């Protein structure tokens, strides 16, 4: 492992100026251990769309200067980094912000060489797994929110302390930190966080005799609205998603399940232990029953729900053939994009749908519980023995993470579809600019306090992507009753967390 001090000592015997410089750097570093370079100025207890708007643009940050206090700006070293950056399909602004970051990083740290790979979301995990087996991983990697737990459990990641990078725990959402804590150890820092919200077509609502400006308040309302839309207009009411082997499915179904008081394990509780199976409790059964009611009894959701992911719901929605669905913050931009590509009569329809698109908070369960999947990404440091070359340049790594997770860049790098992992990012002028230009961002952002991370277990992908969709399909197709499907899922989850694997 190398650091700036090692390099300086090797370059020759220390002069008095060197010693003074090191003393100052040491003092600065020591002070940072106990305090963040960013004073906490966000009050999470006041969180609402209005509060989000009121604090945006109230404070400026200088990432290069702030990070210079963590790692001197003249530090010479190198860092390798893998992440999912913007690709062809992403809007230009995402590319611009990505380029601007790397320009800013190289300007702030001209002597740090970067070896950066942008890898697609679908390839990143497999490529990282392979690289770890061959000890050729990068020093730093950014993974989707629960992508890191598998690697933390297997001992590939270095534990981290926010203070080492110029932050404190208060700079991040508690839920986000929970999602990156395994076995009571923090093994990464949140870079961006987002929660979904609910969108509906106001014209469809009006035509079906519903209040066009009000989202369904509860999930029971969703079931009733969906039926009303289908019965009156002959189109699908709610965009149910239930594809097998698809991560998309739990993202849409778990909010409903949690709202009814269910869970896969106890992830929806304040202090989850991930030891008790809740998939067969009354709340989970009620949520599954509601989905069954819409699919099999009322037939008010797309028949194609069994093979649909959210992407397949976008076309019917923009065509005015779907009343409402759970949506990502970027869904509005996607709809604008789809509308811009429509031609002829389709164009008029698509434009009308965009004009009639409304965003609202997620519906609640019968007891008023509102829930949504806490999404986003975390940045991790890989242990030296698994890194290409066997060394991690600790100082360069710190510089990169400090810059990436600074209030300004944490906001700008999440421009299109997410929110800053660093809460102070909500104070920046970039956040204000986003709120001014991205419609409904205040609504999707205000769902953040309701965010629940999936269980922080290495087995979580199997539970969420396999067991939950299987349970849904078993019930929706009538292959099993709701009770049987939840009991079957419970058995599978028990086996999985018991270390027996999920069978085949």
């Amino acid at each position, binding site marked *: 492992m190398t650091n700036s001090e090692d390099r300086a000592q090797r370059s020759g015997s220390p002069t008095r100026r060197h010693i003074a410089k090191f003393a100052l750097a040491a003092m600065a570093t020591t002070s940072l251990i106990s305090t963040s370079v960013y004073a906490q100025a966000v009050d999470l207890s006041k969180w609402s769309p209005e509060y989000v708007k009121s604090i945006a643009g109230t404070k400026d940050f200088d990432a290069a200067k702030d990070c210079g206090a963590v790692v001197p700006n003249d530090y010479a070293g190198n860092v390798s980094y893998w992440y999912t950056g913007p690709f062809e399909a992403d809007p230009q602004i995402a590319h611009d912000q990505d380029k601007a970051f790397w320009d800013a990083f190289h300007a702030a740290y001209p002597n740090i060489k970067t070896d950066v790979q942008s890898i697609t979301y679908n390839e990143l995990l497999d490529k990282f797994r392979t690289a770890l087996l061959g000890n050729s991983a990068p020093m730093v990697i950014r993974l989707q929110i629960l992508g890191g737990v598998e690697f933390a459990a297997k001992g590939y990641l270095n534990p981290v302390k926010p203070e080492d990078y110029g932050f404190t725990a208060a700079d991040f959402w508690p839920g986000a930190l929970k999602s990156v804590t395994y076995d009571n150890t923090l093994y990464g820092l949140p870079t961006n966080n987002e929660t979904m919200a609910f969108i509906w077509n106001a014209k469809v609502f009006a035509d079906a005799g519903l209040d066009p400006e009000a989202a369904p308040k509860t999930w029971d309302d969703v079931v009733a609205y969906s039926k009303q839309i289908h019965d009156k207009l002959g189109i699908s009411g709610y965009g149910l998603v239930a594809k097998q082997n698809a991560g998309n499915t739990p993202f849409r179904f778990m909010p409903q399940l949690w709202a009814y008081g269910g869970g896969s394990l106890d992830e929806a509780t304040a202090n989850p232990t991930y030891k008790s199976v809740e998939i067969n409790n009354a709340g989970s059964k009620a949520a599954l029953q509601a989905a069954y009611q819409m699919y099999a009894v009322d037939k008010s959701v797309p028949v*194609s729900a069994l093979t649909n992911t959210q992407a397949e719901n976008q076309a019917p929605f923009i065509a005015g053939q779907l009343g409402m669905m759970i949506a990502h913050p970027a869904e509005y931009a996607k709809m604008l994009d789809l509308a811009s590509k429509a031609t002829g009569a389709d164009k008029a329809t698509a434009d009308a749908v965009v004009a009639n698109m409304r965003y609202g908070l997620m519906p609640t369960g019968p007891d008023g519980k509102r829930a949504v999947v806490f999404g986003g990404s975390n940045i991790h440091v890989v242990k030296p023995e698994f890194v290409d070359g066997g060394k991690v340049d600790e100082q360069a790594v710190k510089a990169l993470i400090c810059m990436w997770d600074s209030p300004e860049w944490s906001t700008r790098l999440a421009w299109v579809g997410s929110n800053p992992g660093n809460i102070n990012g909500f104070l920046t002028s970039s956040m204000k600019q986003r709120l001014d230009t991205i419609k409904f961002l205040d609504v999707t952002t205000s769902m953040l306090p309701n965010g629940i991370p999936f269980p922080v277990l290495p087995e979580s992908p199997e539970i969420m992507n396999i067991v939950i969709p299987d349970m849904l*399909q078993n019930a929706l197709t009538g292959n099993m009753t709701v009770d049987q499907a939840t009991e079957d899922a419970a058995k599978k989850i028990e086996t999985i967390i018991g270390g027996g694997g999920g069978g085949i």
Partner: protein
Amino acid sequence: MSSVQGQAIFRDVPGPAPKQASLGQRMYTSRFDYLYIAPALLVMLIVIAYPVYYTIELSFYKTPASLSLADKTFTGIDNYRTVLTSAIFWKVTWQTIIWTVLSTLFSFLLGLGAALALHRAFIGRALLRGLLLIPWVVSAVAASYVWKWLYHSDFGAIGALLNQIGLTKGPVNFIDNSTTSLYALIVVNVWKEFSFAMIMLMAGLQTVPESLLRAAQVDGASAWQRFWHVTLPQLQGVSTVTILLLVVQNFNSFIIPFIMTGGGPVGSTQIWITHIYELAFLRQNWGVGAAYAVLLFLIMMVLGYFYVRALTRGDDKRAGA
């Protein structure tokens, strides 16, 4: 064949049998041959032999998601037992057999029909041949997405067409129905690969001696009799190879089922290869996935043996002639 043996064959007067060269001597004689194939052999060892070895090794270990592969625990044949005693495995096996047999059968028959139709010269033959090749050259991923929308249970073009001509009322559920989904996917697979059979059989038809067909015609054989008694037996070799290749391809066909249905609804389109992928890469159950993959590998080896036999049929005879 070594030069020593070559001399023995062409010697006019039988003499004392030549002394058999030792293995070392023969290897030394062929040292340059080994040198020439060394790079290819090295590449094969790295990209084929090692992964095969590692998969076999993994299949004897338990690999929980919370442990790195370096910490895997030896469990003997437990993974094989888990696979072979699972009801899901046998359900998936049956689906794999249906998928493979029907895909191969219909691809071959359609390909044969197309090859016979295109064997005769007619105006536009080249154009038609090019058109029929399109499914084969189109990316399987793109084709899967297109077919997914054609089949779409709410807005599918096929359902709309059937509706319009009065054959059905309302949208038709092809792939969101666990009883029809596998067959709907087989149609896509057949569409995708019949062109391959067509090309192979068209090449085979070029080798049917024209003289035999003319002789049969002179003897008064009908078109069907000429096809059945002359053309088809002449196509036996290429047909065997084509069928074997189709079987191998279908057994390993991943893209269409995975993209179109993800193995659903309720596992009705799950076949071996998608199931192995799910176990290994989505559930991180490497050990069981590896055991499953070894079973698939063994079947592929058997098919490979027959394929090589079909390809080399008659080689010994020709070498001896």
